[in-house]
């Protein structure tokens, strides 16, 4: 947090090194978040790429009110939602590629290489309704409180807790054998 404030000062002054440090610090976390939210790695890479590029472009007007991690994570969540909305509008399901994570199906320009556990987790999460998936990912991956998630999803606290509980149950049954109660 304190380090971030200094990095932001350097970033706003146009220092390449500060931008580099911010990028190095958060790229993996943001990629992981986008992958678990989308269940598809190519689009997740696009989303995170766009988030970082937009962030870099905002140097002069950037003003941080909370934490930098929250800012970037919220940007990822919002962009994932836009992405899903665009796809739904175009009638795409986003599930057309059977093996969405295999390196062999992704061409030479790969950015994120997922380990087996993340592939399995993303596959299972993809089978949950999106709202449940978002609640679980924000809570588990970003340590966001239910109240914060409620604000993000513009839903009541009870609705969020319900989405979390149902989502968790289904996830556990999907990952049967991977996790133990």
């Amino acid at each position, binding site marked *: 947090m304190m380090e971030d404030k200094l990095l932001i000062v350097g970033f706003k002054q146009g220092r390449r090194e500060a931008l580099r440090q911010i990028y190095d610090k958060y790229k993996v976390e943001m990629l992981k978040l986008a992958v678990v939210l989308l269940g598809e790695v190519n689009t997740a890479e696009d989303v995170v*790429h766009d988030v*970082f*590029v937009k962030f870099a472009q905002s140097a*002069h007007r950037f003003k941080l009110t909370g934490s930098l991690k929250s800012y970037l994570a919220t940007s990822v969540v919002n962009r994932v939602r836009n992405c899903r909305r665009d796809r739904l509008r175009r009638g795409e399901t986003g599930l057309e590629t059977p093996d969405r994570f295999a390196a062999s199906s992704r061409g030479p320009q790969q*950015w994120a290489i997922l380990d087996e556990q*993340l592939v399995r987790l993303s596959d299972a999460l993809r089978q949950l309704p999106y709202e449940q998936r978002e609640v679980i990912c924000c809570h588990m991956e970003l340590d966001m409180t239910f109240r914060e998630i409620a604000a993000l999803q513009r839903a009541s606290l009870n609705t969020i807790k319900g989405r979390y509980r149902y989502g968790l149950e289904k996830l*556990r049954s999907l990952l049967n054998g991977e996790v*133990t109660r």
Partner: protein
Amino acid sequence: MKPADDIRKLFKDAGLRVESSADEQVFEDMVQAQHGADENPKRVPDGWRRTMRNPITKIAIAAGIVIACTVGLFLWTGTGSGIALADVLTRIQQVSVYMYQMSGTASGQATTGTAIDQNVHATILLSQECGMKMTMEMTDPNGTTVTYHEQYILPHKKSMITIMPKHKKYMQIELDDTQLENIQKQNNDPGTMVKQILECERESLGKSTLDGIAVEGFRTTDPAYLGSMAGEVDARIWVDVKTQLPVRTEIDMQMGEMHMHAVAHDFEWNVSVDADEFEPVIPEDYTALSSTPLKMPATSEETALRGLRLAADLTGRYPEQLDVMTLTLYTEKLVTGDTPVAQKLRKNRAGLEREENIAKIAETIMPIQGIGIFYRFLTAERKDPAYYGEIVCPEDKELVLMRWKASDSEYRVIFGDLHAETVTAETLAELEAALPK
């Protein structure tokens, strides 16, 4: 265990890694976006990912690869990185003793204004157990030897010994554990170089042949390579494809008006040497520069403050940078230069016995070098140090001269008037925003 703990663990354990060349391209897109923001704030660059997804681009690239491979049948020796640089570091660390030659030049003008034009040739013998032995010869442009000395770093004796045949002298400096560790980290051997390149943005230079050996090259021009020094760098390393050990390293550095070029070559790995080779042989007629071993200043804030105070008292300003070369030339100018301060110091030393004279000189040199030692320690320990000697003067009582991380939540700051405070990062951010650009 809470009901969700198993799922949480799964989330935490699941991970990914990023592919370095794609990673660099994303970062370059960010840099372009940052710099292009003024000119066209509404435009978000498409970047490499969109470009690569474009089907027309894909076809064009595929065609290009076919053409390149066909045309290049007689020239192509392979592309891409067959060697992982991290493995090279492991291989070096597995070698118990090795030897190499180092040739270099330094030219131009130091930040202190001193003109430099010297050639260096050194033979370096490094042992995991016994330390380092280096013979170094410096010559001027006419080929006249300016300096010749042998230097030993002896971990078991916790000391650094330098023998100067030209003057029939030797000097022994005692090192504490931290200093010894720092010197070993910073002695710039090929292992250190690989380690530094690994921490920087880098590129593969592809495969080639060097002295009949199939090699693969790597390069970095990342300023992060220089650590605490400001300047430009171009470091290249060629690694034997078969043994995965370095064959040649080259480094060019431009720091202000000074240019340095160094080449390490003629590596001999796993050489057989006797431990006696690392025992300095001091002829009987050589005398010690100081009757007792000199002590390196402790690596501490107090040392840094003492050095900065001395610099301010003597010259009215602080060293511009804290790298070894800048500080060496800074102190050399104080000891042998023609400035009023140097003349005054010489006057003060006039008439002193040799031992006292050396002690007086050490009193000047050591604390000032101590600032650099402390700063390099902070850099090595990743304490996020910064130094603003170029823009902050002793009169600037509210400006940050130097800072480093003191704890997870606080920074230690030395101000222009040399008072020190521990502040929060928020406060430091405000203080640094007030620094003149």
